[in-house]
């Protein structure tokens, strides 16, 4: 029987197998963000050493305010000591570090692929659940907890139970203004927020093959919102084009060797998956979440569901609670709901393609509500500025900020006030995620920009778009 893409990479990384069925996996590369700086302190106390500093890469993102460019400008002492702590420890332990002052810094899940740190065929981890993002390049990439981060620092390995495999076949041609964000929200709605628990998900099908790398990263990013730690897409010519020439990617003869290996990675035709799910996206429209779980979502032209229509009493109660928290009514159309703030950014949607999509809507229009545009890295920011996107946003009255996690996580100064409602390109609509009593609606960058210029959840397909090439 053939092997799946996931199994091929897994099998090539098994260092040892325990008697009780766990594999000791070798970790090719690990990214480290500011919230884990204390793991190095723990090593210092225990006298343990970092095994392979050459395989570790660090950059601050969670605790970096988006209106400053230097550590000494961070007013909050907790944030400042966290960002400074990462810098100090990275230097002491010999870990490659992109500090605030370096244009390569940014959100770990944007920086990894951008620098060629993440590559097809490798096993890659980070102490952050959205590490699933990197699977878009055709690697095993997953989020881990703090104890596991420390374990990798000391041993460069992790004990893991091999997950079951699921293939999500996404077929059909996406309509205009519909992309990766809409696809993944629709998939989560279909399999539920826990549907992927215990699985590694391979995204396949014609719509995935036709999708850009940015789109694939958006899909893989929210894999964890479907309950699965691992999302993966078979590497193809689009992947290779994206990876080639990046600073930490192989070059010269090594590039040719790598390419030959990578071409052998896709799942064999006779590979078997534990579960297969299909979704035809030909008629998919822009998706918006209305509740407090990413599975609570509607297409913009559908009404919010009515709890009375749900048979399961527990689910009915959950639905009612979410409606109350979100201050919405059953059967209401989101197009009639106004927003207080708009956020374009986060590891889900802060890459250049995302910013272009938002700019195409923003051009020539005015923001009706406060709107924050936060590029995912210093390099994304520089590219956007070279393309004139920053001017489009600023002329529309939107705020163009420094890279970081920003309003996705409400721990760096960017957040909603209690009761405020956002249109947000981030990945979590949990209660309080964007600040105590915040109300978050997840959507694509184009839909976020449409919300900004209309002040409500407008269907971006009804707005005319600017041609950015003529700017």
């Amino acid at each position, binding site marked *: 029987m053939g092997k799946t893409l996931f199994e091929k990479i897994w099998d090539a990384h098994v260092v040892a197998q325990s008697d009780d069925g766990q594999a000791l996996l*070798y970790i090719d590369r690990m990214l480290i963000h500011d*919230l884990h700086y204390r793991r190095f302190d723990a090593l210092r106390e225990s006298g343990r050493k970092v095994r392979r500093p050459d395989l570790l890469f660090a950059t601050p993102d*969670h605790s970096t305010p988006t209106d400053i460019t230097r550590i000494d400008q961070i007013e909050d002492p907790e944030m400042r000591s966290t960002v400074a702590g990462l810098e100090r420890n990275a230097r002491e332990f010999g870990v490659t570090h992109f500090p605030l002052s370096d244009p390569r810094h940014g959100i770990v899940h944007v920086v990894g692929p951008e620098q060629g740190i993440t590559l097809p065929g490798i096993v890659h981890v980070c102490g952050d659940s959205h590490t699933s993002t990197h699977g878009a390049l055709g690697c095993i990439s997953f989020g881990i907890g703090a104890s596991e981060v420390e374990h990798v620092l000391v041993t460069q*390995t992790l*004990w893991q139970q091999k997950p079951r495999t699921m293939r999500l076949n996404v077929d059909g041609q996406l309509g205009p203004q519909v992309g990766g964000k809409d696809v993944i929200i629709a998939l989560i709605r279909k399999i539920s927020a826990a549907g992927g*628990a215990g699985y590694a998900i391979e995204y396949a099908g014609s719509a995935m093959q036709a999708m850009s790398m940015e789109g694939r990263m958006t899909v893989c990013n929210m894999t964890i919102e479907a309950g699965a730690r691992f999302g993966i897409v078979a590497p193809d010519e689009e992947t290779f084009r994206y990876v080639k020439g990046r600073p930490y990617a192989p070059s010269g003869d090594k590039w040719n060797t790598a390419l030959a290996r990578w071409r052998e990675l896709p799942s064999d035709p006779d590979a078997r998956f534990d579960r297969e799910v299909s979704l035809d996206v030909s008629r998919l429209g822009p998706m918006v979440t209305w509740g407090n779980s990413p599975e609570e979502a509607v297409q913009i032209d559908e009404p919010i569901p009515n709890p009375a229509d749900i048979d399961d009493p*527990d689910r009915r109660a959950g639905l009612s609670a979410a409606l109350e928290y979100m201050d919405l009514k059953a059967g209401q159309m989101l197009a009639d709901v106004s927003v207080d703030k708009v956020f374009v950014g986060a590891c889900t949607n802060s890459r250049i393609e995302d910013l272009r999509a938002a700019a195409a809507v923003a051009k020539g229009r005015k923001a009706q509500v406060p709107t924050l545009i936060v590029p995912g890295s210093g390099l994304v920011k520089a590219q956007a500025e070279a393309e004139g996107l920053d001017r489009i946003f600023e002329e529309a009255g939107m705020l163009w900020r420094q890279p970081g996690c920003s309003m996705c996580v409400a721990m760096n100064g960017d957040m909603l006030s209690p009761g405020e409602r956002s249109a947000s390109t981030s990945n979590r609509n*949990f209660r309080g995620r964007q600040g105590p009593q915040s109300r978050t609606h997840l959507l694509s960058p184009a839909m976020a920009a449409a919300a900004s210029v209309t002040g409500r959840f407008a269907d971006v397909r009804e707005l005319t778009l600017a041609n950015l090439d003529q700017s």
Partner: protein
Amino acid sequence: MDAFTLHTGIAVPLDIPNCDTDQIIPARFLRKPVDDPQYPRFFLADLRFDTDGSEKDFILNEAPFRNASVIVADRNWGCGSSRENAVTAMLKNNVAVVIAPSFGDIHYNNCVKRGLLPVRLSAEECAELRDYLKRNPGTQLTADLDDQVVSGAGNLSYRFEISSSDKQRLLTGLDDVDLTLRYQGDIEAFEKRRETEFDWLS
């Protein structure tokens, strides 16, 4: 970490499906040092406390449940963020066992790594238990890891499944890193092999 064999304590029913780790501990507390005297209050902070710090109308603020050390939760407990601080916040409240129909995968692992027992029972069993606890507040439940049984709610008794590796890890309380360092030779051999098999990566 401490070894886990058996625990008996007051159990609290939490009827919150998809209770994500952002709710278990909001992000604004993630930079706090683990010895912060306020740490116990970070657990489910926005459900338990108002912005002025006063207690909200929430089950963990009711007399029989204040000292609960067993949580009976709903589906997808601990989904979302990988923050291990969620486990720290529970341990700081002396929570030793969480029973739920399903868990976020990362959170489940984090619990095991820190010596907190995650128990998977069916949705019906969890609902039955929560219902019993609401009708009999202050009931103590016992989780016996050796026998893989939860009991104590009248005549109710449930067997649960756990992988043998997770069970051993909890029963022994051994540090994972120490355990792995016994495989030093295998790691070195793999790294040597990797230099040729993954030469494009070096």
